[in-house]
């Protein structure tokens, strides 16, 4: 018998997020309500400044809503302390950024092993798992290379392997193909599909039509609101 959970993996209710921009107040999100189920593959699309990245940051527990509730795996984000949020991100969430943001001083293998070191995974185990993850993303032969020695697509694949390091329930990607050429972007799209097929829940913010079309579900945003889910 498979385990049945009563709540969606991601649940946002009437979420608002305001920023102070000088003397002005920017309303980045204006009452967003959204659910993401386990195993889903969601693409959030919309024009620049519509609040996509803000939404992703809230789901990724690196930001807090001004009002409303955000729950990931049934846990309320706004109730978490900084320490709890950090631990939650470490164990449950993988991040992929547009600009890869790998540690330039570490090799591909060390970059992938970094979150595992933080999670106190024994060294032998984490190096083994990092090697496996690099093979999974097709970089088995680039373990010792530093980010500066890798192409953009290779760097993004290292970043994806790093995001998968601690076996997260949720993988978040913010414009993951934004810095890549079309061919390399297609490789990343294929990789995401493979990840989703292997059971990873994905939420992707993108302007890339091909990437958005690869998702199971598209969420359109405009002016801080979900206009079509």
């Amino acid at each position, binding site marked *: 018998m498979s385990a049945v959970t009563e709540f969606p993996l991601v649940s946002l209710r009437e979420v608002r997020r305001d920023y102070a921009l000088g003397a002005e107040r920017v309303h980045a999100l204006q009452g967003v309500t959204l659910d993401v189920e386990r195993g889903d593959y969601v693409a959030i699309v919309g024009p620049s400044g519509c609040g996509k990245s803000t939404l992703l940051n809230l789901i990724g527990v690196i930001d807090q809503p001004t009002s409303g509730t955000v729950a990931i795996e049934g846990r309320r984000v706004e109730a978490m302390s900084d320490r709890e949020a950090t631990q939650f991100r470490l164990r449950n969430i993988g991040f992929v*950024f547009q600009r890869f943001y790998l540690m330039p001083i570490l090799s591909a293998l060390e970059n992938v092993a970094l979150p595992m070191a933080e999670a106190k995974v024994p060294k032998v185990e984490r190096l083994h798992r990092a090697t496996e993850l690099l093979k999974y993303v097709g970089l088995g032969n680039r373990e010792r290379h530093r980010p500066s020695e890798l192409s953009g697509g290779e760097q993004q694949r290292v970043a994806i392997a790093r995001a998968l390091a601690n076996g997260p329930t949720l993988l978040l990607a913010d414009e993951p193909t934004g810095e890549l050429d079309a061919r390399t972007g297609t490789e990343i799209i294929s990789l995401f599909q493979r990840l989703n097929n292997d059971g990873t829940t994905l939420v992707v913010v993108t302007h890339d039509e091909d990437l958005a079309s690869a998702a199971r579900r598209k969420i359109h945003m405009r002016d801080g609101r979900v206009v079509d889910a």
Partner: protein
Amino acid sequence: MRAALAQASLIRHRARTILAVLGVAVAAAMLLDMVMLATGMRESFRELLLSRGFEIRLAPKGTLPFDTDATIPGVSAIIATLRKNPDIREISPVLGASIHVLTGNRDVSGSALGINPSVQGDYELLSGRDVTTSDALVASDHLLRQLVARVGDTLNVATGYDPQTRTYSGQRKLVVTGRVRFIYGATDQSSAAMRRETLEGMNPQSRDRASLFMVRVRSGADAEQVRDWIDKQLPDVTAISIATAIAQVDERLSYFRQLALILGAVSLFVGFLLVTTLVTVSVNERVGEIAVMRAIGVSRSHVVEQIVLEGVAISLAGAVLGLALGLVTARYLNTILSAFPGLPMAIDFFLFQPRAAWSALGLLIVSSIGAGIYPAWRAASLPIAESLRREAIA
């Protein structure tokens, strides 16, 4: 992993790291030198006083040893009194006088000590033999150079000179039996020593008088108690223990020491500022990197640890380099200052005392850790989403 990250980060900015290490090294060297200077003379003076094992000096009432030409009368009676105290092991009366050594038509003036060679604590024999006979004299290298004399030569020595009649008094032929180094003498001082009876014989007015008594106490005895006892028994002399002498030196050197401590504190502050500046610049450059580390689940304290480790590594490397640099400069400065006229050649201005040196360098490292904590914590506490957004815009 944090140590590896810190190391890699320092290597990434190699030139900046080297400059920072050099900066901390200079601050550490100056701090070390100032600590050595602040305590060095005092300790050096203490070691000098203790070097021959005489813990108490007796000088004419109200004076310091050889501060004036005053002498203490009744040497025999004083020795007899001192011998009553079982804690007193040895007594060395010393008579000081000016001498004129007549060589050809030249008169080389200097100072002479009348001592008992078996218990003297004023010089070390470098070559030849001690003043075992009444016509023997040992001399400093400076005096021998001035006289162009050597061991075995006979000198015509006088203890007095009348400029009106241009005549010398207390003349005697003495044989140079040895070369000596006067422990309390300056490098440029022309000094000689002979038996006390010899000097008394050349200057009858000083018969049974001494300029100074040096007293050695029994092992385990309390020198301060002995000094108190002497004060009571001999009210016409001033008994000075090592502690009293050091207290007097401390008083005379207090401004000097304060200056050294102020300069040391400035060095410490400079080191602190240097590390703070470096860490601040470093974290400002890496706001995005730090935000990413936080986003992927690296805890705030671990980010701080990594950044502080960088500061510690710089401080440690700087401290080690500064230790070497400080010792070299101290040695050089000591050579210059020790050649200052009139100072005992055995006095060191910069004395390396491991405990003080480690404390100073430890303080520098601790302050450097403190210097790194605030900017590191500030950077690790920046809002992650906001930092990433700014980084993306940049």
